[in-house]
């Protein structure tokens, strides 16, 4: 018996030790290696540079005086499975966006999608949004919403909101201007 243990006992101890590692759910805490200090510095610098370039791009392409941003958001959205949103500004198609499942999930969770960023002159404009997807009872569903708005000096933000109308068991679509 003793002889037999000599053969595998040390290896058993090794495997026991290996099996006694703490378990953490995927993606949870581990100790960062020292080598990533250098990478951290670099990433921080690139992130700052990235921010400046991002701001420069936006200011250059979409100056605040003429900027208009259109956002899509979803509040609950139980009666409507979103496929796509089409945006028309003053009669012209400016965006036609087909949503992926991952994006729709992000909208459900409270994310807001910037569907269009562009330029318009100051004055009165008309914005039409057409929502396409699956409505109650699995039926194809297409609805439009319109807003007339005045673009003053300063960036203009418009939100296209999909909500549920509990009483009618139907989705509702709003176009809302941000103050």
């Amino acid at each position: 018996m003793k002889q037999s243990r000599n053969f595998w006992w040390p290896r058993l101890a090794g495997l026991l030790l290996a099996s006694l590692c703490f378990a953490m759910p995927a993606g949870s805490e581990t100790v960062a290696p020292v080598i990533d200090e250098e990478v951290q510095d670099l990433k921080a610098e690139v992130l700052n540079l990235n921010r400046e370039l991002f701001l420069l791009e936006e200011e250059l392409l979409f100056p605040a005086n003429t900027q208009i941003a259109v956002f899509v958001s979803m509040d609950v959205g139980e009666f409507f499975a979103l496929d796509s949103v089409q945006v028309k500004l003053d009669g012209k198609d400016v965006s036609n966006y087909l949503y992926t499942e991952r994006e729709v999930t992000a909208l459900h969770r409270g994310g807001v999608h910037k569907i269009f960023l562009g330029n318009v002159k100051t004055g009165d404009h008309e914005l039409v949004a057409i929502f396409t997807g699956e409505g109650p009872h699995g039926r194809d569903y297409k609805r439009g919403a319109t807003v007339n708005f005045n673009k003053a000096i300063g960036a203009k933000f418009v939100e296209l909101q999909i909500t549920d109308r509990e009483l009618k068991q139907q989705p509702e679509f709003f176009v809302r201007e941000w103050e």
Partner: protein
Amino acid sequence: MRPGGGDRRARTVATLATVLLLGAGPAAARDAAGLVVEDPHFGEVLFYFYQQNDFDALTHLMAAQASGRVANHDVEAELLRGGLFLAYGQHRDAGKIFNRLLADVSDPVVRDRAWFYLGKVRFQRARYGEAEAALRQVQGNLPPGLEAEHVLLLAQSLMAQSRFAEATTVLDGWKGAADWTAYTRFNLGVAQVRNEQLEAGARMLDRVGMMSARTPELASLRDKANLALGYARLQAGEADQARAVLQRVRLQGPFSNKALLGVGWADALQDNYRSALVPWLELRDRDLLDGAVQESLLAVPYAFGRLDAHGSAVDHYLTALDAFGNEIARLDVAINRARDGELVPALLRTDDPEIGRWYWQLEDMPDSEDGRYLYQLVADHAFQDGLRNYRDLLGLHDHLQEWQDKLAAFEDMVETRAEAYAERLPPVAARMQGVNLATLSDRRDAVAERLTAIRATRDVAGLATADEQAQWEILTELERSPAWSHPDAAEAREKQRVLKGLLSWQLDADYRFRSWQQGHELAALDKALLESDRGMQEVYAARDQVPEFLADYRARIAALQPRLNVMQDTVLAVLGGQQERLQLYAVNELEAQKERLLTYRVQARFALATIYDRADAQVAERGDPQ
């Protein structure tokens, strides 16, 4: 931006904690049910964040903060930025944010989150004592999801300081979400076994080992618990209990090989080598890279030897020697491939570009020779972190290259705008000179003055149309004719009187409407003049500002260009260094595997030689020439 009551803000803060469960749990929760977005740009950040696109989320958040577009979410934005930094591996920046929040914010809800994340940062930096201190500052304002992680992290910090008894106290009796409970029980069991409290640890591990697992992750944890308990029982010499526990491990899975090996050992512990051969022979055809399979190649002939079946023992030792030799040769090829730099790109080929943040899962290992050899390596978090850094750097390099291209386009754009400005300025200036708003304004004033006078005297003819005025003139002119008073003109005078009266009546009847109409048109004129004036001011402002804007853009582009160049070179250099480190890491791991196989080969040869020696000795004893 939106009208939002205090309750809305409270809801936002209360739910933000859920938002900030950055890949922290079995549910990998990033949910924010009830979160009310009060700035669309904050919602946009969340849109990227929920898709696990942390780089874009960070970029948008940093830009939105810099341009003041998330003012209604100032604290939440900072918490989110800190959390994103942490998820992006920027522990130091994350730490600064949480420290600043603790210094500036008195809200206990925010402070608890800041302490929690600060603890997390310190833990990741292996500063366990400081992590513990931060985590102990949490005052019970964390939501359940974070609280679960908080307790687990505190226990881990204590375990890392070898304070198992305290870790046990922290974990003992704690009840959280089912998934977290399983992990917590497992860790508690492990801590207790390590702390030589086998029976207490066994109770915990047994509960995990008997649970029903809803997810592959939990099934894996269950196997792991059974394996740990089984080996602990084996080491305690409790063969029957060990066997029973190890037999609960699934036959297919990352822990099945070790379990089969252990079941064999449980039999061997009771000198039941015939039974031991059953699981050990099952291992024979499995992947030789697994340490348990390699062990089985030695264990099987050893068992045959113990059963005095020396012929079979020799056969199996020879098979083992062949297998070890082949595997060593393949490892040599893999080591050379790793040294040639083919390894890291091969590992990244299976990367999912849709997912910004990812950890290698053992089940998702690339189906290649390299992946097969690096199973153990990729299971190691340090290597995963290195690989993650490498991947992040690659992403940064691509981003910088995109900006290089864009910056060149921006430069062209600015120059084109400058040319267009220079071209358009003279005609615009000429047109502006031709516009005299002051004259127009004077004319408007004259009209207004006239209207005021008409209203003051109720001069109904003053508001007559041109035709009516002409008719009035004709009728009035008749009165000045020399023949007007002639008797023969009596009929004409009568007609003139009637017509003049009619016209006068009409003008009087229309006077109020016309007076209102004129006032209305005057107001419209005022508005038009105001618009024109504003338009002129805008044109003047544009004329003066455009050169300033263009100069500002030029200066910014000129300042960013060299930074971009330097950064690209640095990223490339660090990328190269990181790849070398990963290669070295991989080569060392492969060398260690080879070393282990070489040792096994020596053991097999030695055992074989021993059998041959014994056989020779027996032959010599018997005097048998064969």
